[in-house]
């Protein structure tokens, strides 16, 4: 499982989509997951609305936008195999409005559902689950929830299953974080601020840092035009930011992979988008 995070607005969704498309092209059965108010992944594959169910968007590639109440039902019925309990207790309106307020429960259900698709589904698990996760601050709090739930005195199956989910997240042969940044000063400083916290507090560890939207140097002929001057200014600023990221990552024992600035992304993505993108 890959968990894609980073500061807001730096292209996490595109990176998650490209990873999913590439894995599917290599023959892996892949599930692309998001949990958001509006679908952002499916439209990249020309499918505007997933209605919160698994939707096949390309060969080997499914997409889903997880909705918290569905996570709860799926967790109790499929994961814990307690359909009757769900129907008689959890489906009750008052119970529903109560459990939604129990701190940490929503997050545990979300992680439990990702674990289910990656490891448990009797009808066949996915070879790869790619989660287009929340922005870094919210993501860090999501990652600390399993341990917090265990510490908070949850018992019963929830405690034992959450322990299992935490161990799955912590198993670096199974789960990794893809941390996305861009070569901008503010983004780089936030990245260098968040990465050590993630490494210290999250059971899942950073598998790859991606520097997205790295601009190329404009052709010298352009330098006297407004466009060329603009591209040059961006190139200089980006080079500076990339240098400080590079230096900061060395201290953390991490490396990064650079991806080019594509300018404007046309939707839907071409079927070979990821192959071409990663080749650059």
């Amino acid at each position, binding site marked *: 499982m890959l968990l894609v995070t980073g500061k807001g607005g730096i292209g996490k969704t595109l990176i998650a989509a490209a990873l999913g498309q590439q894995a599917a092209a290599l023959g892996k059965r892949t599930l692309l997951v998001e949990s958001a108010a509006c679908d952002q992944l499916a439209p990249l594959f020309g499918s505007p609305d997933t209605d919160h169910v698994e939707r096949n968007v390309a060969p080997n590639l499914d997409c889903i936008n997880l909705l918290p109440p569905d996570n709860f039902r799926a967790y109790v019925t499929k994961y814990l195999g307690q359909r009757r309990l769900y129907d008689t207790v959890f489906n009750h309106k008052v119970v529903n409005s109560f459990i939604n307020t129990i701190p940490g429960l929503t997050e545990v259900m979300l992680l439990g559902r990702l674990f289910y698709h990656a490891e448990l589904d009797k009808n066949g698990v996915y070879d790869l689950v790619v989660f287009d996760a929340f922005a870094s601050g919210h993501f860090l709090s999501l990652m600390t929830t399993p341990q917090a739930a265990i510490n908070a005195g949850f*018992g019963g199956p929830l405690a034992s299953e959450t322990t299992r989910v935490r161990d799955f997240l912590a198993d670096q042969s199974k789960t990794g974080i893809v941390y996305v940044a861009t070569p901008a000063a503010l983004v780089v400083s936030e990245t260098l601020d968040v990465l050590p916290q993630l490494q210290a507090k999250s059971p899942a560890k950073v598998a790859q840092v991606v520097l997205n939207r790295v601009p190329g140097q404009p052709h010298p002929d352009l330098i006297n035009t407004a466009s060329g001057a603009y591209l040059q200014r961006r190139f200089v600023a980006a080079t500076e930011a990339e240098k400080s990221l590079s230096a900061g990552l060395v201290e953390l024992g991490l490396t990064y992979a650079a991806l080019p600035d594509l*300018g404007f992304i046309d939707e839907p993505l071409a079927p070979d988008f990821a192959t071409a993108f990663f080749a650059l």
Partner: protein
Amino acid sequence: MMDAPRSLATIVKSSRVVVLLGAGGVGKTTSSIVMALLGARMGRKVALLSIDPAKRLAAALGIPLGNQLRRIVLPADWGGEAGGSVDAAMLDQKAVFDSMVQRHAPSDAVAAKILAHQVYRAVSSNLGGPLEYMALAKLQELVDDHRYDMIVLDTPPDTQALDFLARPNMLAGFTDNMVMTWLVKPFILASRFGLGKLLSASEKLMGGIAKVTGVHALQSFGEFLVLMQEVIAGLNKSGERIVSMLHQEDTRFMLVTVPNAAAVRSAMSLLTQLEALGYGAELLLFNKCLPVDVAVELEASDEASSPELARLRRRAAGEVGLIAKLTAAATGGPVTPHLLRLADEEQEIGSLEALRILVDKIAVQ
């Protein structure tokens, strides 16, 4: 026929409350500061409530994190109409939450018990939590404060859903009285005598939940809810006042986005939710646009001589299309939006001087 949008000066001078909405990473916090500074330049006494988890802006402006407003000292040559000022607070969720508990708890003893409770400590500082509600509760307080005639409210970076505008009674689920009287209280009473004695339907339901979560966590959360009951009721009441305040004509919404397909999709989703609640976006701000001179040059040239230029041209065309799309969608709503743009080079702010340049650029649009 739609009305022409109001001018920016009219909007700034006539707004009591400006609420900024937008997805993460679109420059919302910066934009909220720019709006506040613009208000001050037009002679208004502005209170700015902002949320910047990265704390960089707070540092740049010399505002401590917390829930106390602090005057932003503007340089002598700042200009503008006399009497304008900005008092800003960078909200810290726990600090605001604590003050709400202290205000609404029935006694200091209960407040102290709540503040020390394990569940409270988990809820009150969790980033994914109720920051939106906190900001609104603070907003309510400021609307009653007549030292300010304009209040600018930034919303948290992860805001995707506008439930908090529909039900500003913080932690909406908690407030359901039925949950309290029917589910939680009998359970807390019964659990004092041991769960073997669970008899009523509600106790059986709680027993069912406990089959999944274990009893201990439920007990601890139940106790917390019982302690919080009066705090919740107090917040509920101010929630009703917030709804009526948001519906006043002089409360304005500003939608902030950037010109790429994903961000515009988020903005459309926010707009739909906003309009479903009966509000409209009076201001539409696109951050991180191509600089105007570049866009003009690209439009004048008829072919791209290099791959970089071809990419820029695609970006320019894409931006025009997306800006038109969102503007058209917003124009169909209750108000005609005033469109504002800032170029992407103007976003890196870290000083008052850099902010002044942004205010200058916005003021003339």
